């Protein structure tokens, strides 16, 4: 097998998700190359070359690839896909945006969000908000796959792949970047954090999310939110955990003022330990929580914070 992994970039650096996708590639078993495409990505390419088990890193460094637009990225991948049996990306918004376009350009199906590899052509993926797991087999000559990174432990460093420049520059007259508003935070990234504390509609307003800060600081946690909290404008969209938001599987997930709708559970029910804090003792979240505390979050949160080391 010959696998090309599209690297994820985060603020211009190699995103931690890439190491999880390489792990999925290793499960498929074959030669693994990485494509780093963007502008000013030399450092990201060097980080990719250090990932364990990688053969070669292709670098496409050009303004046309900046901002990860789907049209030029998929055209680039079409140029490079020959000779590979699999193209993988994480199920990040970049992977989800680009890989289906690539698949259709190559007239093959695309497999979204796999969480297990059974063989080079058989995979498991969640359907119906993760309430069922489908095992699918692909007979396509090229398998184009996005990977749920929580399904695969990241590979470590220890590799020394060669780095090769890709001279392909595609035209793009159809789409252009206008602007972006990205969250800036010192907290760990939500997708990979070992501890996550999330607030829901019960938090009442955006100001109250500060009540989570002290606990998040002490636990080194990322802060997430339910759809209700984002829709209500309490917090920005990048904090949403759920079926169509971020999928997390931390060691500890603390759900505060979150009722536990099917769509939220889809994003966090693979967490190792789930704690729920809610004043409604019949909230559905208590059905998945390992530990449930019924009460007023405005009293409970400061209490927890003072009692943590």
């Amino acid at each position, binding site marked *: 097998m010959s696998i090309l992994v599209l690297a994820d970039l985060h603020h211009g650096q190699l995103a931690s998700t890439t190491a999880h996708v390489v792990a999925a590639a290793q499960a498929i078993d074959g030669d693994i190359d990485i494509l780093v495409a963007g502008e000013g990505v030399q450092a990201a390419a060097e980080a990719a070359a250090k990932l364990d088990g990688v053969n070669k890193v292709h670098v496409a460094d050009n303004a046309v690839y900046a*901002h990860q*637009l*789907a*049209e030029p990225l998929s055209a680039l991948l079409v140029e490079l896909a020959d000779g590979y049996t699999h193209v993988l990306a994480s199920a990040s*918004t*970049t992977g*989800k*945006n*680009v*890989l*289906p*376009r690539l*698949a*259709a350009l190559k*007239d*093959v*199906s*695309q*497999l*979204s*969000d796999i969480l297990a590899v059974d063989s080079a052509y*058989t995979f498991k993926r*969640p359907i*119906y*908000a993760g*309430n*069922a*797991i*489908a*095992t699918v087999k*692909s*007979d*396509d000559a090229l398998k184009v796959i996005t990977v749920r990174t929580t399904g695969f432990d990241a590979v470590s460093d220890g590799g020394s792949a060669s780095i090769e420049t890709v001279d392909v520059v595609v035209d793009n007259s159809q*789409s*252009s*970047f*206008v602007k*972006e*508003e*990205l969250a800036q935070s010192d907290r760990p990234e939500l*997708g990979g954090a070992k501890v996550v504390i999330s607030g829901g509609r019960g938090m009442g307003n955006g100001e109250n999310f500060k009540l989570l800060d002290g606990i998040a600081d002490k*636990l080194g946690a990322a802060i997430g939110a339910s759809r209700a909290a*984002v829709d209500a404008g309490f917090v*920005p*969209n*990048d904090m949403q955990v759920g079926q*169509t938001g971020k999928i997390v599987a931390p*060691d500890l997930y603390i759900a505060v003022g979150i009722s536990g709708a099917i769509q939220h559970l889809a994003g966090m*029910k693979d967490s*190792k*330990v789930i704690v729920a804090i809610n004043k409604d003792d019949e909230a559905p979240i208590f059905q998945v929580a*390992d*530990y*449930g*505390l019924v009460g007023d979050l405005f009293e*409970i949160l400061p*209490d*927890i914070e003072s*009692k*943590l080391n």
Partner: protein
Amino acid sequence: MKILVAVKRVIDYNVKIRVKADHSDVDLTNVKMAMNPFCEIAVEEAVRLKEKGVATEIVAVTVGPKAAQEQLRTALALGADRAIHIETDERVESLAVAKLLAKVVDEEQPGMVILGKQAIDTDNNQTGQMLAALTHLPQGTFASEVAVDGDKVNVTREIDGGLQTIALTLPAIVTTDLRLNEPRYAKLPDIMKAKKKPLDVKTPADFGVEVASKVSLLKVESPAERKGGVKVASVDELIDKLKNEAKVL
């Protein structure tokens, strides 16, 4: 401009599904069905563009069994002008749906196609992107804002790190995310009027599209069940259990 909106009939978002005993699929017998929530947002956006005078005609299309005409009638009640039903009882994968929609785009020549970003049954999130590829059009996926500006459309997208705004030349493909709009409900008089709006029925064969896929579904299983939990009586008890029992603190 003409707007094409693709919609899908799926389980109602509140339904708790069960896997069939033979593991061949999810059990949909007697399950409540509805228009995919992201498709509702797509219809709403098209209707708003018509109300603003940007769109002149809205055509709704779906690929699915006869019962899917219910969703087309809903779209017509909400403001679509006519509908196209591509009828099939087969399981149709995203690539085949995209191929069928590409044929419709060829015939209808819309200025914009709006789709939901993903269907809540398959959770694939592929059709819009694939349609864009097949029609050689640009794509604005996971849209939380759509603003037509002359011969371009500015799409603000919800991405992992926050929000990104891109400009696409028209015609373009847009897929909707949760916060693009809040869909209206169809009013009874409009539901009645919708019965008289045109609804054309076609088949995949009419478009010369093969719906057979190279991906086969081998089995469907329930995910591993979580062990039931306990309610603790105090913060002290919670912290104690997290430290000494769960060992996550």
